[in-house]
């Protein structure tokens, strides 16, 4: 026997109240005066036995009635079978806690099913429970007692996660193979959580326990986009209706002190956009668009950051021999230009105040005099950053040797391509490993890093991009001339250049994250700082491994604005809007993928005893009436 509401089981102890009252009333006798006890001494006790029996009967039926009522609250049931367990000895329960489970009564039903699984375990059977949002951590019995597992289940809430069930199923399958266990996945069968390419591993038995009704209504905010990244005046919010029926909702916009509301009418499966005016200002403003009166809460809000952008000043030191318009074309100016270029000749370098520029581009390192290298070196050591292209071999005494040894010029037969790209580096993480492969290099300078590291390498194993140890200088082994490379004509060139300069200029590269993402932000100084999030405050220490203060934050579990330090950068974290699409996977397709389906729920496998207990309580009350009447 098990209980669907085991946490209410302690209430059964209240059934002792009638017994306690009986005992207390016997123990705490009232004292009273009486004129004479003469007659009381002579009273015979003939009727005492029946009266005592009557009192005892009343006590029993009252206790029984109360006990039956209280036990009925805990919803006891008789276990018949554990679905999906088969001949397996142990059980692994995967609870889908993605935010789609917050829709309607899905979460309650899922938790009840999980409780029922735990309660149905026979003696000696082991169980492990894990959630889809954090499949790496499991709770297991006998490591944890069953009551603790029940309590843990009660403490769980649907997360804001949008992870598919794939990692959890993979993890559960590994555990199952190690322990010869059956796997049950309690889920809403959301289509995106169970992609077609997800198959049941060989030898594993995975039962999907469906806790969702096929019908649903849900709309959400899926995107916020400013009209102009440099000087945003308006913000366009995109709304989607995932459901099969038209819906009318109210969209509320809030930014600092500004607020507005609009009606949103969405047809079945349609999307629409609404534009809101944003307040002007110099500081980044967190904004929120909320869709009111919609059933699934997490995707009803979307956060954004309206950040008036100031173009980053870039000094381009360009020699006549390496005149190239490709830099100017790639970096602006136009209405969305992030950079404001100042182009000077190398001989003007000594008269230029470098501190006015967060980043300097040298188009040909060989044209920089040793004295200017000293100035550049000082600039780099005092917070500046530079991208240096090497066109020709630098002469003796070149300051470049401080960062990379120049081994000569390479003229390959034909060309070489980039074969190795460190896409984990913040300056390159916007690219995929093969994005730069189409670029051809007809000649390049052979470099060897002095104390830095290689971020990209050519097919001949020569470095293409070198980053110095302090992260303030990137050296490319080529200059941007068509005779040297056609990199400038490739699609990845602009993002590569933008990303590199943003990184070097210490501009925060990204301000919009999803739940579960890792936030990386550049800071002004290293040391401890407080991260203020909607889910609480966190203490953090800025990472200085790449030569500049940088914070890495992984606890992105709640949507909203995240501020790094009192006056530090702000980013926003949103739920993945795709999770709001509650469309169910086709059961036939899931069966072909190897899953077993348990529908409509776990209740069919149990025989509820609550009605029986209610009848028993009613009978006990009736018996009380009869005994009282006797």
């Amino acid at each position: 026997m098990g209980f669907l509401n085991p946490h209410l089981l302690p209430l059964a102890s209240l059934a002792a109240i009638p017994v306690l009252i009986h005992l207390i009333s016997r123990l705490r006798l009232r004292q009273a005066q009486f004129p004479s006890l003469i007659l009381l001494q002579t009273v015979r006790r003939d009727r005492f036995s029946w009266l005592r029996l009557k009192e005892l009967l009343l006590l029993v039926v009252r206790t029984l009635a109360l006990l039956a009522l209280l036990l009925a609250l805990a919803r006891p049931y008789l276990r018949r079978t554990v679905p999906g367990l088969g001949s397996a000895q142990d059980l692994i329960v995967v609870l889908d806690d993605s935010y789609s489970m917050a829709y309607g009564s899905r979460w309650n039903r899922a938790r009840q099913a999980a409780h029922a699984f735990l309660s149905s375990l026979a003696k000696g059977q082991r169980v492990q429970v894990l959630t889809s949002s954090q499949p790496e951590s499991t709770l297991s019995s006998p490591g944890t007692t069953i009551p603790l597992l029940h309590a843990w289940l009660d403490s769980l809430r649907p997360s804001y996660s949008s992870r598919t069930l794939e990692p959890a199923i993979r993890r559960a399958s590994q555990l199952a193979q190690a322990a010869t266990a059956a796997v049950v996945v309690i889920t809403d069968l959301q289509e995106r959580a169970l992609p077609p390419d997800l198959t049941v591993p060989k030898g594993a038995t995975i039962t999907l326990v469906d806790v969702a009704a096929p019908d649903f209504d849900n709309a959400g905010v899926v995107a916020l986009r400013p009209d102009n990244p440099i000087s945003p005046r308006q913000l366009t919010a995109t709304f989607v209706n995932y459901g099969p029926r038209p819906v009318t909702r109210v969209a509320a916009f809030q930014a600092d002190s500004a607020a507005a509301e609009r009606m949103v009418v969405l047809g079945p499966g349609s999307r629409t956009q609404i534009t809101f005016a944003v307040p002007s200002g110099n500081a980044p403003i967190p904004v929120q668009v909320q869709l009111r009166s919609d059933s699934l809460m997490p995707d009803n809000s979307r956060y954004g950051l309206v950040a008036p952008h100031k173009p980053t000043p870039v000094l381009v030191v360009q020699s006549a021999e390496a005149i190239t318009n490709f830099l100017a074309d790639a970096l602006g100016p136009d209405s969305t230009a992030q950079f404001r270029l100042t182009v000077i000749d190398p001989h003007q370098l000594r008269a230029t105040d470098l501190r006015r520029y967060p980043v300097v581009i040298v188009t040909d390192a060989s044209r920089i005099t040793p004295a200017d290298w000293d100035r550049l070196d000082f600039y780099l050591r005092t917070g500046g950053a530079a991208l240096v292209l090497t066109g020709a071999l630098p002469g003796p005494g070149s300051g470049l040797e401080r960062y990379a040894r120049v081994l000569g010029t390479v003229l390959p037969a034909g060309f070489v391509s980039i074969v190795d790209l460190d896409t984990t580096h913040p300056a390159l993480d916007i690219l995929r490993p093969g994005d730069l492969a189409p670029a051809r290099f007809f000649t390049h300078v052979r470099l060897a890093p002095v104390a830095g590291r290689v971020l990209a390498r050519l097919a001949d194993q020569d470095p293409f991009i070198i980053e110095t140890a302090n992260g303030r200088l990137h050296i490319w082994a080529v200059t941007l001339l068509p005779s040297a490379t056609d990199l400038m004509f490739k699609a990845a060139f602009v993002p590569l250049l933008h990303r590199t300069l943003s990184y070097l200029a210490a501009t925060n590269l990204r301000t919009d994250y999803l739940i579960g993402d890792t936030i990386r932000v550049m800071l002004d100084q290293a040391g401890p700082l407080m991260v203020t999030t909607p889910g609480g405050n966190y203490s953090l220490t800025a990472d200085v491994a790449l030569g500049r203060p940088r914070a890495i934050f992984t606890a992105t579990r709640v949507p909203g604005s995240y501020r790094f330090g009192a006056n530090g950068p702000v980013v926003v974290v949103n739920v993945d809007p795709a999770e709001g699409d509650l469309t169910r996977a086709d059961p036939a397709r899931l069966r072909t993928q190897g899953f077993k389906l348990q529908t409509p729920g776990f209740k069919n496998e149990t025989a509820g005893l609550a009605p029986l207990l209610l009848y028993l309580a009613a009978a006990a009350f009736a018996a009380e009436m009869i005994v009282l009447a006797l």
Partner: protein
Amino acid sequence: MPLPADSRHRFLDPAVVAKLKTIDLKARLVVEGFLAGLHRSPYKGFSVEFAEHRAYMPGDELKRIDWRVFGRTDRFYVREFEEETNLRAYILFDASGSMAYTTGKLTKLEYASSLAASLAYLLLRQKDSAGLVIFADRIQTYIPPRSSARHLNILLRHLEQLRPGGTTNIAGTLHQLAERVKRRGLVIVLSDLWDEPAAVLAALRHFRARKHEVLVFHILDPNERSLAFKTPVVLRDLETGQEKTVDPRLIRPEYQRSFDRFTQVLKQGCAQGLVDYHRIFTDTPYDQALLAYLARRQQIP
């Protein structure tokens, strides 16, 4: 003009009377209220001492018409006389500890005090002589009967100063008194009679043997019969201090039968011994007790 029955009972309600501060006032209130409530007093006109003339009313005996006055005035008047007897009444008052019991607004002792005062007032008002004997396990106070008006104050003062206490020894005390009172008269016993019934009856018969008329007011609290405790309770005897734990719900019927047997034995024993017995509960209006007295009084020659 008689008062309506309801208002008369309200007037003589013990709870109402108990609000009066002095026992003198209580006695006056009870007696006057009682007399005002009687339809017609049969106790006037038996004496030889002229009191007054009053106009003839249909129903008056023709022999009481004063023909001389008729001759002078040509109107019918009847003569009325003050009643005059030589009755000696002894009020035997039980002041034992059990008389302190109450479940209402007044104790049995207070009720009996008011009743005793009323009886004394009534007796002395009729020019009878009244005495008072207060007893518990022994005679505590003995005031011989007198018929003077001042005597009433003495009786009332003693009644006001009464404090219950001690155990009951009714039989012994009554025997002692029966021996002490030589001249026959009316003996009025006010007691809860919590003693051995046979011994009490023997003592009462002792008075009868001495040619006394005996009137017993058995004063009881309603709870002494109903035992109306709702939960189990430890009962402590007011006289002996003895304790007994009882569950009234279980023993009530049996106790009430036992109580009724106890009072029945007393009643039957009194009847056999020609003793007038009246059981009175403290929530009963006083006029019932007074009527009982007057009914007995009629028998006195």
